[in-house]
């Protein structure tokens, strides 16, 4: 099936969309996301009636997503491979509760180094967003991972499921 490898990063607490989007963008930029080949950012605001937009300027792309209560999806590029970055808002209220990154399966499988990069990126996002749960595996979304339900569980201290590529759970604030 035309599935994807999915990375979900679920935050301990929501943050304003603008701040969250920029934080994710900065983290991705620090992990080789967005190469010089990318000249168009495809933005899907998650609106049932709206077609994805193609926006040339990255700032505009991020602003477009931040301005949408549902937030939405921006397509990035890592090593010539599309990485869909979906900003998640639990109540579609403009606050960001997490982020989901997806890569098409064959591109991921044919480039073993992408696994390491995505895992490193996942760890970095986990830290930057103060995430409570970060998971990565094939077809997480396709197999019925309800991120809103998982978010509630994780924030309640429950670790649900196991994931083979990345499986982080930080129920309490760092103690050090």
């Amino acid at each position, binding site marked *: *099936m*035309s*599935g994807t490898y999915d990375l979900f990063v679920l935050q301990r607490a929501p943050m304003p969309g603008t701040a969250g989007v920029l934080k994710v963008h900065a983290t991705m930029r620090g992990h080789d996301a967005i190469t010089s080949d990318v000249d168009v950012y495809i933005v899907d605001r998650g609106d049932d009636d709206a077609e994805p937009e193609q926006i040339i300027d990255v700032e505009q792309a991020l602003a477009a997503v931040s301005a949408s209560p549902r937030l939405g999806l921006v397509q990035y590029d890592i090593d010539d491979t599309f990485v869909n970055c*979906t900003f998640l808002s639990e109540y579609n209220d403009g606050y960001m509760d997490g982020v989901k990154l997806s890569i098409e399966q064959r591109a991921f499988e044919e480039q073993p180094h992408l696994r390491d990069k995505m895992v490193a990126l996942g760890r970095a996002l986990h830290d930057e967003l103060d995430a409570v749960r970060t998971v990565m595996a094939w077809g997480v979304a*396709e197999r019925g991972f309800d991120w809103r339900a998982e978010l509630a569980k994780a924030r309640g201290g429950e670790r649900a499921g196991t994931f083979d590529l990345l499986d982080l759970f930080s129920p309490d604030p760092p103690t050090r």
Partner: protein
Amino acid sequence: MPTNAKGATNAAAASILDGGGSGPLLVEALTRAGVSNRVVAGLASGDAEPAAVTADGAITPPVPGVNKTGFIDHSDGANLRDGPSETGGRAVHPQPLPPATQVFVSGTFPKAPEWSYVTALLDGALLRGYVQGFRITTDLPEPTAKLYQIRGGDNAEGLAVQEFSTAIQDGHDLRYYENVLLYVNRERRRAGIVGQYQDPGVFGGGADNIQLVAGHRIWLVSPAYAMALKDVVPSGSLTGGAVAKVKRFGGHLQDILASVTDSPRYFAVVAGEYAQAIRDHLPEIIGIVALFVTAEVGSMLLAASPTGVGQIVALVIQLGLAAFGAAGLATAGVAALKHASNWLTLAWEANGDEAMLAEASKEFLRMLVAIAMAALAYLGVRANVGNAVKIANSMTPPMPPAFAVAGGGRTGVGAGTEAGTAAALGPPTPFGPVGNAVAMTSEEEGGRAGGSGGGGSLTGDLTAEQVATIRRLPGGEEWYNSLATFSPARRAAAIEEAKAALDAMRRGQPVEYIGRTVPRRSGKGTLTEVDVETVDEIIQVKGGDYSKATKLSGDDLTQFNNTRIYNEQMRVGPDGVKLPPKKLVYYFTHQPSEALVKWCEGKGIEVRVQAP
């Protein structure tokens, strides 16, 4: 005509390599099965024995009963010999086994118990023979621990990053894992690591106060074991509960090894006419299987639930075939698969229960019998065996003292190599570290293909004929080879792609490709992926629950857009002229909502739903 297996092998190989029969197939099969070039070359020259084989082609069988995983623990390494040097034993490998090489100790030399019989993995080759016992340690802190030779420039933090970076969590940072290294090696009185525990809040020390001593060796434990120590290391309090928890670590792996090493007790009730033959070679077979299980798949067996059992079963059978001299045989039949699967499942579920472990041992033996029978049939010596003739006498040598492991993957043994970990499997690749898990065609009624055993069939409910059909398609061989490397969920998805292709063929659509990656216009990178492309259709297969979706969104929507770009703008003929778009088909494995169907149709997508 040859009268024994070696002769049969040589004759067959010589004939084949001379151009007769299906020669290239055998050479390819041998190579793919992991038999080293040296062995293949030996077959070509009529000398089936690797150079390391002694003149009589045999190594004196050991006195069994040790059955422990160990490592070479001597700075000079250890020479591997066909017998004690005092009695004229000669080296079976030109160089000593390096310090920190992993071995499995099966037994000792008759009348010289200070010499241990070991099986070792070195540079992708499987070796066996005798080494001096004092050069080995079997005092492992946990079943998948590795001994590491410290080199100049190594430091505790670097080793912690190397070994544990995948396991770091809040509250357990690198300093915790450095403490684990210190704790584990202090317990074993290893001189290669010194200093004080890190983390001033807990242990009163400062940063970077754990040092390594070059030239010595220390234990590296698995990330899972390190986590299991969390109740021990931070507090230093060895409460009964904490100790018990740690001691139970790796229980599944220990049970599986026990089911292998205890199997000789059940010959009389299981092995029948093959009992004596297999008994004669069991120390070698146990050594090979046990080393494989601990060195290559140990981490899989530490999981909370058995994963990759199908691959393990396939590889154990492949090793068994190689051990019986039939490395080129890709199938051992359904009986071997069934018994292998039963063996692993029973041992996994035993949790120390003796009755279950006994049954597991019996299944292990039954698997060996099935493999032996298949090997003999393959080698063409079945008729020479007879009820009273031992397999042992039919094979010279019964197993070469050196042959390559499947895939020639990293084993993480020996000085100079990257420190081995139990997670030697690494990322899945078609010919990954544990080798290419040759999918075996079963002989079950109905001709279902795959038959990987306990972990579920590699090819699901596809028939052997269907699998063969898919493999003949462009992209089909890649599809097939990938199956063994996938997680069960990913594999199930790949099987759905095959079903979509078969469905298209039933509709009279010749399939042009299964699993196509579409490059971007620039030729660099990937635009999108197409599951099945036929002469007239581009088919994307959709699993998951679309019963409430009203449109494609998110990842599905971007994929749809990119698929449309490919279909409508990028397909050109050989003359460079743009080709007309094909029909775009979405093949859902579960019924989508009416709204989604309507949305798709509005976009020009034909919706198909997999027949129940």
